[in-house]
């Protein structure tokens, strides 16, 4: 071979990966205080910052049957006043400590997160404790937040992604509290301030709480400070409540949410699947990565890179505390709704029928293990990983063994997970779009029901 060819063939070879450097998983200092508060601390000294999050193991699911969204508005109002600080005082205290505050509630948990400069760690911690223990729920702030929430809901009801998950969760979970992702405007209008206080009193309790802090501090001294700040706080665990099971879904059904004037269709399909505690968890994670959970996955290669139907199709596992679900979503042009669903199920069925190739298996295992270790390179990433472990009560060595679990998986594991948890035959399908553009295509995939954006059924009259 001539020299230029030799040079270019040299250049053509993909460089191999060099030896892997060991990942040093964060050392955790863990303690449960006598009042029941769990504390997890991890040092991270790269930047002079601290990130903390105080979780309560109750969220909107705890109130879905009485007052949907109550946990969320409680979280919103918590940050607007305490016995000793006005709303403005809180925001100014934050600013002088370089602080960032967030309060929110999901289905299973409520949380107050606070981050700022490490030199103000104790002030930030005190503010966090003040919000967790002495929130005062000022009447005017409550009314302001309530009003803002109503206006936000009006906007959400014009947002395709929201409308899709709102309908999908209702279908998937039926009478189970996870069915409700947001309250109605009427429900928000009925909230009373005392309900928020009551929710706060019962659920923002030491025995129901988990504090995680990551940052530029010495763990031992930090623990002392936490004990000093939170030690006096005693509040019992809320009583567990009975929740109905989600329905069993037999056969594919299609739910069309009619969004007048939509120039694209939002497709969302899936089924009940696994929580992180399920013995199939890791293998389902891997199957999902190969199916549609990564940029190089089959579904993305198919409907984006080959067919150009969609910009960001993805599938995912959603492990809520009591039940998990598997879902796949894509925003596609109106003309290819049926074509997209055909590929979604084709790829699902292929995962169920045939073993993945050794290359795909290797590639997806590397992807998951690599991305997992990237997670500890920032304080927020580390806090995220720790909250997964401790909020979900995963084993002590969860971080250290995650990659071993993934690396041990085989093509048979992937096949069995896909067969059990990619329930193609009984998938529930939601399409959000203009019905005149997409209804006929949607109806090809199962019994069809149509709803307006407020969730009201629209009667079908077929000519």
């Amino acid at each position: 071979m001539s020299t230029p060819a030799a040079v270019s063939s040299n250049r053509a070879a993909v460089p191999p990966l060099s030896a892997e450097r060991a990942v040093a998983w964060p050392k955790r200092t863990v303690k449960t205080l006598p009042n029941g508060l769990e504390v997890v601390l991890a040092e991270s000294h790269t930047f002079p910052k601290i990130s903390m999050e105080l979780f309560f193991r109750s969220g909107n699911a705890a109130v879905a049957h009485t007052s949907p969204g109550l946990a969320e508005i409680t979280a919103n109002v918590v940050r607007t006043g305490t016995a000793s600080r006005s709303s403005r005082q809180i925001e100014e205290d934050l600013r002088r400590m370089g602080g960032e505050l967030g309060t929110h509630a999901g289905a299973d948990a409520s949380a107050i997160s606070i981050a700022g400069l490490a030199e103000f760690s104790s002030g930030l911690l005190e503010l966090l404790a003040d919000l967790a223990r002495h929130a005062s729920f000022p009447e005017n702030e409550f009314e302001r937040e309530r009003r803002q929430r109503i206006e936000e809901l009006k906007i959400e009801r014009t947002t395709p992604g929201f409308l899709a998950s709102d309908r999908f969760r209702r279908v998937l979970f039926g009478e189970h509290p996870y069915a409700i992702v947001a309250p109605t405007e009427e429900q928000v209008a009925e909230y009373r301030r005392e309900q928020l206080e009551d929710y706060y009193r019962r659920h923002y309790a030491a025995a129901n709480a988990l504090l995680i802090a990551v940052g530029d501090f010495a763990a031992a001294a930090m623990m002392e400070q936490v004990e000093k700040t939170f030690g006096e706080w005693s509040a019992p665990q809320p009583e567990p409540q009975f929740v109905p099971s989600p329905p069993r879904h037999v056969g594919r059904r299609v739910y069309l949410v009619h969004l007048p004037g939509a120039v694209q269709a939002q497709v969302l399909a899936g089924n009940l699947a696994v929580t992180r505690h399920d013995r199939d968890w890791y293998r389902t994670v891997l199957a999902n990565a190969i199916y549609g959970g990564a940029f190089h996955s089959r579904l993305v290669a198919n409907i984006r890179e080959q067919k150009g139907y969609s910009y960001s199709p993805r599938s995912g596992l959603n492990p809520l505390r009591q039940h998990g679900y598997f879902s796949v979503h894509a925003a596609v042009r109106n003309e290819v709704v049926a074509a997209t669903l055909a590929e979604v199920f084709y790829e699902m069925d292929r995962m169920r029928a045939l073993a993945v190739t050794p290359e795909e298996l290797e590639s997806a295992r590397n992807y998951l293990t690599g991305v997992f270790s990237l997670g500890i390179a920032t304080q927020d990433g580390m806090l995220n990983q720790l909250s997964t472990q401790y909020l979900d009560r995963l084993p002590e060595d969860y971080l250290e063994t995650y990659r071993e679990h993934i690396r041990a998986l085989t093509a048979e594991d992937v096949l069995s997970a896909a067969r059990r948890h990619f329930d193609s035959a009984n998938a529930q399908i939601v399409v959000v779009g203009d019905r005149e553009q997409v209804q006929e295509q949607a109806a090809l995939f199962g019994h069809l029901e149509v709803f307006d954006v407020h969730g009201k059924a629209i009667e079908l009259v077929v000519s």
Partner: protein
Amino acid sequence: MRLGNGLRVVASPDRSAPFVTVGVYYQIGFRLEPRGRSGFAHLFEHMMFQGSENAGKMEHIRLINSSGGLLNGTTNYDITNYFEAVPSNALERVLWLEADRMRALKVDDENLRNQRDVVKEEVRVNVMNQPYGGFPWLDLPPVAFRNWPNAHNFYGDFTDLDAATLDDVRTFFRMFYAPNNAVLLMIGDFDPNEAFSLAKRYFEDVPRGPEPARADISEPPQREERRGEVPEPFGPLAAVAIGYTMPPRGTKDWYTAAVLDRILHGGRAGRVHRRLVLEKQIAVEASGGADLLDTNGPTQMVTRIFPKPEFSTDEAIGAFDGVILELALQGTKAEELDPVKVKIRADYYSMLEGGMGSYMPRFGLMHYLASFALFDGDPDRVNTILDKYLAVTPAEVQSLAQKILVPGNRAIVIRRPVERDAPKGAAR
């Protein structure tokens, strides 16, 4: 370090965790895309994932993902970037891939058609099929600016996207995607000498390109306030965007502007949010900011206001003007400025550490290093810029407010909800 072909190389070792973040930044953004080809810079960015000399379609993505890493690219006003975060044992592989696509793209008509379709769905999902989609970043420029590079539709008109050809792709690549128009950044777990020698090995023989032609992006002087309206097809509320053009990069006023921005915006303690949302309760939301560090041309500080339906957009603008007037007339004091500076410092560290979600470590550090390298020829400014902000005085803030927060330096765009017909009844 600068290679013989003009490629700038910046390395920032950090051995705290076994990852590396690598970026290649080209000094071309949507401002400089060719006339009649709106949206082309972004479409082109997609083409950079479609295959290069030795790595075919999907190979870039597969090789990075299967090395345990993540990748992406973004198109901005004055830069387009391509970046990866990977375990540190994949550094060499990433450099190989980036060099391969800097040397030669290998794309065809089918790739172009495919990505044109993908981009159209991107525009639909982010703009055309979302309430307030593209508000205000696509709404303001055509109202605020007069010179096409600053004033056109950056995501692209579909007719322009359809008109793009493979020849356009080749020409654009030749003109702007040369090593002398780029900077390579490596951050994370490596020995800097090794990293530099790897960079040399893979990039040194990428041929230098022509000096890129740079269109004139200056704006004619503005005298009057500029206004525009855009219909909002989905959202129920009107929305107001107010943009003030910022001082030129690197001037004393440019640093002061960053501080002034944070006095006005900067979360719930910022004056705009406090007055409009918390005190007067005219608006559901009021927020804003200015992207100063990563732009190199006419740039605006933008405030977004969503007035409650019982207040008119004029009332909201009036309340906003009250805030502006107060700053211009009464200025600020140390008791406000000092905590603002603490917050600036905290936010700067957070940005350097992450900046694009917790899974793209040091994205912000990379982004700023690249901007300082390309626009100022001095990546080291990443270490000194905070001092410039911290040195700003109350008097400087007030005098800048009087100079730039004036009607003749601003543009206002209103998103106005369209009246929709009553929902149609049952299907026929």
